[in-house]
């Protein structure tokens, strides 16, 4: 079975769900309001979309997840998003800053230049 895709802010929602599930949808909406700043309608829309896609289940106003966190992460790993390549961008991409290995002392020195 192919694990369904989870988009960016849906993922944050799922993190909350995995922490609190099974949970009543009203309570879930309240937590989402506190942690994500979503209105109630937004949360319900997200729940509906995710249940359409088969990521969560909403029965009698109780929401549970159908895929676990490990499954979602594993599925995304499968799509060639190896962690080893995470830090490196190709040279022909215009980036803000590239990841570099800086020692603690170098970082300190640079902070001093900034704060001067």
């Amino acid at each position, binding site marked *: 079975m192919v694990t369904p895709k989870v988009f960016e802010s849906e993922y944050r929602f799922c993190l909350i769900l995995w922490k609190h599930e099974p949970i009543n949808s009203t309570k879930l909406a309240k937590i989402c309001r506190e942690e994500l700043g979503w209105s109630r309608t937004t949360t319900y829309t997200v729940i509906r979309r995710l249940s359409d896609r088969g990521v969560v289940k909403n029965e009698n106003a109780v929401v549970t997840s159908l895929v676990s966190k490990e499954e979602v992460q594993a599925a995304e790993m499968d799509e060639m998003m190896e962690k080893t390549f*995470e830090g490196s961008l*190709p040279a022909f991409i*215009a980036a803000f800053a590239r990841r570099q290995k800086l020692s603690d002392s170098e970082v300190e020195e640079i902070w001093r230049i900034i704060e001067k």
Partner: protein
Amino acid sequence: MEGVFLALLHVSVNAGWLVLAVLLLRAVFRKAPGWLRCAFWGMVAYCLLCPVSAASPWSLRPDTGRIFERCIQLDQVRSSVMLEGGRTGVGGLSIWSVPAVVWLVGMGAMLLFIFVSFRRLGRRLATAEFVLEADASRALTGGCDSNNVRSRYDFGKTARGFRPHIFGKRVSGNDERRKRQTAPARRIVQSRHIDSPFVFGVFRPLICLPGRMAEQDRRCAIAHEQAHIDRRDHWWKLIGFVLLSVYWFQPLLWAAYALFCRDIETACDEKVLRNATLEERRAYAAALLRCSVGRREPAAFPAFGESGVKGRIRYVMDYRKASCRMVAAAAAAGVITALVLLTDPVRSAGQSAAEAKVTAENIWQVVDSLDESGQREPVYLYVVCETGDWRFLVSRSICDFWDREVLLNNGDSRYVLAVPYDGGLYYVGEVA
């Protein structure tokens, strides 16, 4: 193929001189603004892109053209002749065949790398979502309302099923409609699968941000990426890399590309911070540092001079606009360099065939041909000697290989080429 490779080799040698000159210019005019330094590299790109260059009397280029032209001519003749066993002469393959194949493989590998990288990045962005930018001002600092720039899941304004546009795939119709209704002012997405901000895409560039970024850093990164887009850096860098793929055998060009990338970043920093206050510069430098810090390990190797980040931050903090005089001087030096190194030296015209004396002493090489069936097709004898490179067409009625004597007729003079039976030396004498 060998001819193309030889031509590229020639261009790369010329470009090498230019790169050295630009390195000198950069060292001399250290305070020159970033955009001017990028223009210097533009000259190198122009040199690499143009297969022919004009001749001018001020050119200082070392004249390697003759050597390459001779190689190319020899190669062309070789590729059109066929071997008759025993003769000295070569058939379809030349000594340039192996290097040419190596070059093709190298170029193919690099172009493949571009494709694969784009696909990889596109896949990583598959679950990214557009970021709302309610705050339209482009100030770097200033009261940051945390609700504004934070990514918000708003049903009408997110992109579902994002696909990289460079591959021509479009998002589904519904999404297009939704995007048109409430299209964000700038195309900015956020993804938890990337860890530093960059611009993705060639024709419809997308600013991609990592998941966890402080508000302040996010503004600075967006401003910087927008500067990249405004300067069309996403094109120049890609064109530069494609040029590097073609001319990968020229080591000076790798250094040139690395420095070109650095100059681009500096130019973008300048563009963003043109009228910035000290506070804004501090915030920008801090954002730069925070985005560069990867794993906190001691550096495995000592850095070559200053590491990229340190140099950039130092530049950002000390930035002072270059004086007009400095800019003018640097620009003038650039123009002179272009005049001197982008043009070929003027060559005196060679002697005409009628004046040349082709004698045994100055024959350098002869390449001849006979087709496989022994038919006497028009035969080309390519005689290379000190007085010039002559290509003779031997007329069919005169060519008689059984006598081992070939009459060369190039229209004006007639030479006899005596070919001994053992295929060794060639003698040439003039016909009365």
